[in-house]
Every structure is written in structure tokens, then in C-alpha cells.
């Protein structure tokens, strides 16, 4: 591979030139790291963020503008479709592509905020349970048992019935129901960490428990938490879809992939594009999140470093 690095002779192989020099070694390391970044995952996440942030610039139409006479038009490659609505229109004549682009906003917000809320709560409880053990651990673990036994839908309807529908409240529901996934694993790690000699020495030397937690344990479990978080982003989006099925999703006419999926379900055998394209968008996002999470897990796991 030949790269122009300003001043370096282009006809020489970089590796040969770099060998032995400090700068060359650094460049080598960067290249190796770059090669390891999961391209597909990065691309997907980039696409998602671009859609979410720049929706007004990219989307061809207003996502909530209705045009009843233009309802249920198929994608442009089918008979009846047109380039005006590349992916077709929904049952109110709204452009599907624009709604998918704007829908990325909701998915990004739901995915990240949901993961943040549940992740922080779950990690916090997991760390406490793992470090202190004993009664606190027992209480928290039994709490997770209780949460796992209660049907997600029941809690969702109860919470939203009480505080009303809307994006913020959806995130609250997700946070309250999904923290359990983090706690078990983080607790396990925190427990192992607490047994390590390093921590025992810190305790003996009189470090306050709050400092131990914050400075020693938390950063080390953060790896797992982050991995879990990226894997969960997709789950959050799918749960939002489940809420939409029940009528508890984001307020109409806001475009959300989950809402489009739910609303398009009855049209599946007739106007397949209403549900299929948001479904594909969700699938790709889940794929991206999972690829990223898998890569992170491999990267951050010390054992796998040896194989690199």
C-alpha cells in the first residue's frame, strides 16, 4: 500500500521505510488499529447519525405532510410508483423514505437514552451488589428476580397509563424495565474485582469505599457495561416497536420506525413497503449495534489481545 505522507517517497513500501523508526512504528500501530475497526458497524452508525442529525437536509419530503390522494403508492420500481416517492407512500400519503430518515431521530434518542438510563441504573446496582455483597446483594438480586417476572407490557401500560404517552415517558419505561440485563453481569464482575489483591490492599490501606468504587471498580466494569450497552441499542428500538403495537408509542404523527412497523403490519400482504422498509432500517441498526458491541468486546477483553 502506498500512501502519501508528505515528503515520504511514494515508490517505497511504507513498512520497509517505517521499520526501525519511532514515527514509523506509531504509524504502523495506527494502521493496525484502523484495520481492526469494524468498517460495517462504523458505516451503519455513521449513516444513522447522519440521518438523525441532518434529516431536514436529506429527506426529500416533509415526513408528516399528508396527501390522501397519493396514499399507498408503491416504491418506484413497481407499477404505480414514481421517483417522487422512491420508497412509496403510506396510507396517509406520507413519503416513506422521509419518514425513515426522520425516524432515525427517534431511534437514536430511544436507543441511546434508553441504554443510558437502564445502563447507568443497572451498572450502579450491579456494582453495589457485587462490592458489598451480603444483604445488599441479596436485596438487589431479588429485585432483579421480581423485575424479570413482571411482564414488560403490564409495566408499560401501567406506567404510561399513569404518566401519559410520549417519548420521555417511553424512555422511562425502557429504563425501568431493562436495567436488569446489566446488573447480573456487572455484579459478577464487581464481585471478582473485589476479591482481587489490589482492592484488598486498598481496603486495608484505609481507602474509603466510595473512592474504591468510583476509582477502581467502576472503570473496570465500564468495559462490560459499554459492550452490553451497544448490544442493547437494538433491543431498545425493538421494544419501542412493541409499545407502538399497543398504541403506547410516540405521539402521532411523529415518524418512528417502531410506529411505522406497527401501523404497517395490517398492510403486509397488500402494501408491503409500509412495514418492510422500517423493518429493514431496524434490522440494519441492530446489526450495526451488535457488530460494534462484538468488536468492543473482543477489543477490550485482555485474553483476546494476545491473539491480535
Amino acid at each position, binding site marked *: 500500500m502506498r500512501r502519501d505522507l508528505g515528503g515520504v517517497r511514494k515508490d517505497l513500501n511504507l513498512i520497509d521505510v517505517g521499520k526501525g523508526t519511532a514515527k514509523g512504528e506509531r504509524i504502523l500501530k495506527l494502521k493496525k488499529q484502523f484495520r481492526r475497526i469494524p468498517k460495517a458497524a462504523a458505516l451503519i452508525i455513521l449513516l444513522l447519525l447522519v440521518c438523525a442529525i441532518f434529516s431536514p437536509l436529506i429527506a426529500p419530503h416533509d415526513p408528516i405532510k399528508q396527501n390522501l390522494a397519493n396514499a399507498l403508492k408503491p416504491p418506484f420500481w413497481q407499477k404505480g410508483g414514481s421517483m417522487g416517492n422512491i420508497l412509496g407512500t403510506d396510507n396517509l400519503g406520507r413519503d416513506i423514505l422521509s419518514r425513515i430518515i426522520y425516524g432515525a431521530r427517534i431511534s437514536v434518542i430511544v436507543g441511546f437514552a434508553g441504554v443510558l438510563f437502564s445502563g447507568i441504573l443497572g451498572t450502579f446496582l450491579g456494582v453495589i451488589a457485587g462490592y458489598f455483597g451480603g444483604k445488599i446483594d441479596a436485596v438487589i438480586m431479588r429485585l432483579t*428476580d421480581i423485575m424479570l417476572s413482571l411482564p414488560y407490557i403490564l409495566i408499560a401500560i401501567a406506567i404510561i397509563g399513569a404518566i401519559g404517552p410520549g417519548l420521555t415517558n417511553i424512555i422511562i419505561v425502557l429504563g425501568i424495565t431493562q436495567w436488569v440485563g446489566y446488573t447480573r453481569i456487572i455484579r459478577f464482575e464487581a464481585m471478582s474485582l473485589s476479591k482481587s489483591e489490589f482492592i484488598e490492599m486498598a481496603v486495608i490501606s484505609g481507602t474509603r469505599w466510595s473512592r474504591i468504587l468510583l476509582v477502581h471498580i467502576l472503570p473496570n466494569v465500564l468495559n462490560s457495561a459499554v459492550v452490553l450497552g451497544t448490544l442493547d441499542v437494538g433491543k431498545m428500538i425493538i421494544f419501542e416497536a412493541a409499545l407502538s403495537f399497543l398504541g403506547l408509542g410516540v405521539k402521532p404523527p411523529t415518524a418512528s420506525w417502531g410506529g411505522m412497523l406497527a401501523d404497517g403490519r395490517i398492510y403486509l400482504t397488500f402494501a408491503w413497503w409500509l412495514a418492510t422498509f422500517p423493518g429493514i432500517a431496524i434490522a440494519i441498526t*441492530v446489526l450495526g449495534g451488535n457488530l460494534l458491541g462484538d468488536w468492543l468486546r473482543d477489543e477490550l477483553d485482555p485474553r483476546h489481545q494476545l491473539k491480535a
Partner: protein
Amino acid sequence: MGAYIVRRLLQSIIVIFGVIIITFVISRVLGDPVTLLLPPEATPEQRAYLTRDLGLDRPLYIQLVVYVGKVLKGDFGQSFRHQEPAMKLLLDRVPASLYLSLIATLISVCIALPLGIISAIKRGTIFDQVGMTLALLGQSIPAFWAGIMLILLFAVQLGWFPPSGYGGLKHVILPALTLALFFSAATARLTRSSILDVLDMDYVRYARLKGVPEFVVIMRHVLRNTFITILNIVALQLGLLLGGAVITEFIFSWPGIGRLSLDAIYNRDYPVIQATVVVAASFFVVINLLVDIIYSATDPRVSRK
């Protein structure tokens, strides 16, 4: 060890108790069921009568005490909507749910285990990448899409299977496949990562260094040690399947627990909601208890402080 078991048992009872109380609270938050049990033309007298008859006019704490008392005797009351005992309604659905979940798990395991194992062994190769991507896609496909597509293809076009309904093997295949899609994907990925964890263990490397054939290494060392983890995964999936097959049951008109509990929530049928949740809770608690006991017996890292 014995003391540990006793302690966990006590805690489990507390958990189930907690679930009972929380479900009660949530049910009451869901609002007045009487509105849904009478037509809009009902007179205030009729509403009052029904409220009194269902015991909903008494103060909340009395309702709770009465309810808990009955539950301890195993009486979950009559369904508000169907005038049958709530628990009977639930238990009638269990065979169908169990049947569907078992077949779905069987299909999942047959697909996922080999996929996960081979992906782990051939880690990093094209097989691994393609396999795991397929698994991810399988996890992302919405159940209703898969279900309806299966019906259109295998029932309507090819006519191999009936589109819906409860019955023998012919009837269960399509819904089981729909469920298996998601769960084999998840199971394959989990299998792969737990095998990878074991593959890196020192004793496996040692066996390889000794010259033991790769196949024997896999069969004897790797599988044996991942067996418990995989069993754990499968058991949890089974548990999730029992409660989480709502959409599949809806599409295929399968008379399972999922549909019953969804209808109950929709109709504010408290006795049925409560019965379902308590049964689900007991199931989870028992599984967790068993798993924790096995872990603490075998893994010295997880010891009591």
C-alpha cells in the same frame, strides 16, 4: 451449603410475595375494570353493584389482605371477564404453550448449536462472519413479518401446512419456526461466545499441545465445560418463550399463555393478570435458584461474604 440453600429459599418466597404485591398495585393503577365489564348504557346502580360484587369498593389495603390470603390458599379468584377460575384459565393454556415452546426450542437448538460451535471453532473465517451476520439478521426480523411470510409461502402458495390453529406436528411447525428464528439466532451467538471463552482456557491449549486430535479436544473438553452454560441459556430461552410468544400466538391463532395474558391486561382482568404473573414469577425464581445453587457449588469465585 445447606444454610445457603435455606437462605435462598426464604428469599425466593419473599420475591414471589413481592411480585404478588407489586402486581396487585399495578393492576389497581391500570384503572377501574368495571367500565370495561359493562356496556356504556349501564346505569350507575349496575356499576355500583358490580363494583361491590367484585370487592373493588373496599379500601385498597383490605383488598390486598383478602387477595393475599386467598392466594396463599391457591385461590386466584374468578376471571372478571370469563367467569371461570383464573388459574384454570391459565393452566388450560399451558399444554399449548409448552408444546410450542418445546418444538421451537428443539428447532433452535438443532440450528443454533452446530452453528455456534462451528463459528467458534472457525473463528474469524468467512463461515464465522457470514454465520454470525445471519444470526444477527435472524434476531432483527420482526416475528410478525416472519410469521406472515411463512404462512404466505408454505400454507397459501405451497399448501404444505395449515395457516393457523392448534393441532399436531403439521400445525405447530410454522409457529415454531417463527419463534425459532429469533431464538436460534440468539442461542447461536451465545453459544459461540461461551465456547470461545472455553477455547482460550489453558487446559484446552495444554490438550492441544499434548497432541490430542482437534475433534477430541472439542468433544471432550470444550463441550463438556460449556454444557452447563448452554443448558442455562436454553433453559432461560424456554422460559422467555413461554411468556413471550404473544405475537406468534396472535398470528397463528395458537391458544397459548401469551395471548391470554395480553387479553387479560387489555381487558383489565385482574385475577388472570395476577395468576399469570405469579406463575411466571415462580417459574423464574425456581430456575434462578437452581442455577445459583449449581454455580455456587461449582464455582469457588462466587462465595458468600
